């Protein structure tokens, strides 16, 4: 990676009250998903979600992050998805901090990932629907089977996705990962869920 590509000098301006309010309001969408979009859009979303899981399992984090839109959010709520302005989350990253997170793992000194966690993302119960305002949305259940340094673990829950069309292609604008036990003690989850 060249210095220019890795530097984060540009400001990140999209995390504001309007964004937080939108994220909280999405709760209704996850609980009452609407009708599916045209079949070709369903297929596009499915392919994107599967590709995302595959890149994570392959440890291709730089290619993985390119699946996300310029103004994306990666969010793991602590238990229920309450207002992140008033509660901490397991993780809540804008694109800048998500890139920091990838860059940390690539320094060669991120001891929590030496050796790296091996993951197998399994997705099921997939529902794809309109997200409003030119967006698409999806909800799927997941099990992530992990192995690291002699320890097998399984993480489970459901994911909410928002997709936006950017530069002629569909990108992930939101990945909200709802662990069934996000509010309970978590072991080393320093990879990506």
């Amino acid at each position, binding site marked *: 990676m060249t210095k220019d590509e*890795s530097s984060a000098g540009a400001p990140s301006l999209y995390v504001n009250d309007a964004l937080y309010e939108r994220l909280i309001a999405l709760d209704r969408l996850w609980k009452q998903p609407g009708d599916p979009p045209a079949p070709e859009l369903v297929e596009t979303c499915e392919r994107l979600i599967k590709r995302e899981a595959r890149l994570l399992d392959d440890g291709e984090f730089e290619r993985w992050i390119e699946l996300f839109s310029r103004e994306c959010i990666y969010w793991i709520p602590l238990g229920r998805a309450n207002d992140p302005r*008033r*509660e*901490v989350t397991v*993780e809540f990253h804008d694109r800048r901090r998500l890139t*920091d997170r990838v860059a940390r793992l690539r320094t060669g000194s991120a*001891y*929590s990932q030496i050796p790296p966690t091996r993951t197998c993302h399994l997705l099921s119960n997939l529902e794809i629907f309109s997200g409003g305002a030119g967006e698409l949305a999806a909800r799927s259940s997941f099990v992530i089977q992990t192995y690291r340094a002699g320890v097998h673990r399984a993480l489970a829950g459901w994911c909410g996705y928002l997709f936006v069309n950017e530069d002629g292609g569909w990108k992930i604008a939101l990945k909200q990962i709802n662990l069934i036990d996000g509010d309970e003690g978590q072991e*080393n989850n320093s990879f990506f869920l």
Partner: protein
Amino acid sequence: MHSAASQWDHLVQEGRVHRSLYTDPSIFAEEMIKIFGGTWVYLGHESEISKPNDFVSRNLGLRPIILTRDGSGKINALLNRCSHRAATVCRLREGSARYFTCGYHGWTYSNGGQCVSVPGDDAYGPDFKLGRYDLARIARLETYRGFIFGTLNREAPDLVDHLGGARMLIDQWLDRYPRAELVVRSSAHRMVMRANWKLVYDNAGDGYHPPFSHRSLLLMTARRHGPDRDMSYYGTSDPDDCAMYTQSLGHGHTFIDQRPEMHADSAWKRQRPQPGRETYEAQLRRRLGNEEAARLLEVAVGSGMNLNLFPNLLIIGNQIQVVEPLAVDRVQVTWYATTLDGVPEEINVLRMRTQEDFPNFGEVDDGANFEACQQGLAIPELEWVDISRHLHTARERLDAQGILTGPISDDLHFRAYYQEWKRLMSAELNLTVG
């Protein structure tokens, strides 16, 4: 065989401690009684049970307890054990309840701990008295500025005396912004590590590890965000070449002061940018003017204080971190997030994003190192853990208040808390529940 007292003298020596303190299940079992029972242990914060009938479930060592505020506003720490067959009567982590009814046989207790109903109580004979079956309670409960502590040791000194030199630092941590009240109601990160609880406690006062254990965070920050950010003041060639220091405050309490570096100019300016930084800073500056905004933004960033209150309370940054032993080789670290009542909402939003940063970018590497320590400690033939750094360099200074100050990388913290650990483990403690 060693006698009881000399056993501990053998295991805790001046510059080294024995591996069994981290690996022996019988020592762990004794710690859970004596360390988490014989001295003041942090149980929770008053703001977590701010209204009458609020409760939270906690542990005193391995003892499940319920921290309640009863109808009269009084705080109670009740042992969560039905007087009948021992089932826990409260099975939720938090909530609001006037009564706790045991799910097994229906015995019911008020949130003040009184036994108020036993189904079919006439079968226990004519001498039956409900009052004999109240929930047991933690014998002594005291608070200091919102922090609730309990002990089973009736002979323990008063809490304020026990806190001693740490009191002034708690005050400084709470009084960073005038008239702002600390609130602990913003959820908590809970991290579980396959390590003995003292590996977490060791680390809390270890000013030697940051440039190494957190190398990934420091490297990433420097590469992506430039020099002089966050903890860049921790040098690698000479860890003590800085204005930071460590202190032993008495009773096993210790302190690492990063403020002389972190807050030398502006901690806000040196902070690695967190989500929402630009938006909320601009909003504050527009509304309140540059001067007031700048003062406020300093409390959105961590305090630069690591105040460790033996055995389980670590005040770090803006968080209240609690060490919760689960087994000899398993510990949960709970990071309670805090907000401030009396500051603009933007500050609290920024505090949320800041407080979830270190658990994700720093603590994970420490956790991996604790687990690596636990694995190395499994080797029976290699018995000792070194805690001798700066023991013989004559760089520690004792002041008139009895506070011992050393260089930032000094192992003073280990030596100080292990003295208190040894004192409690050696003592004939008279522990009772009320």
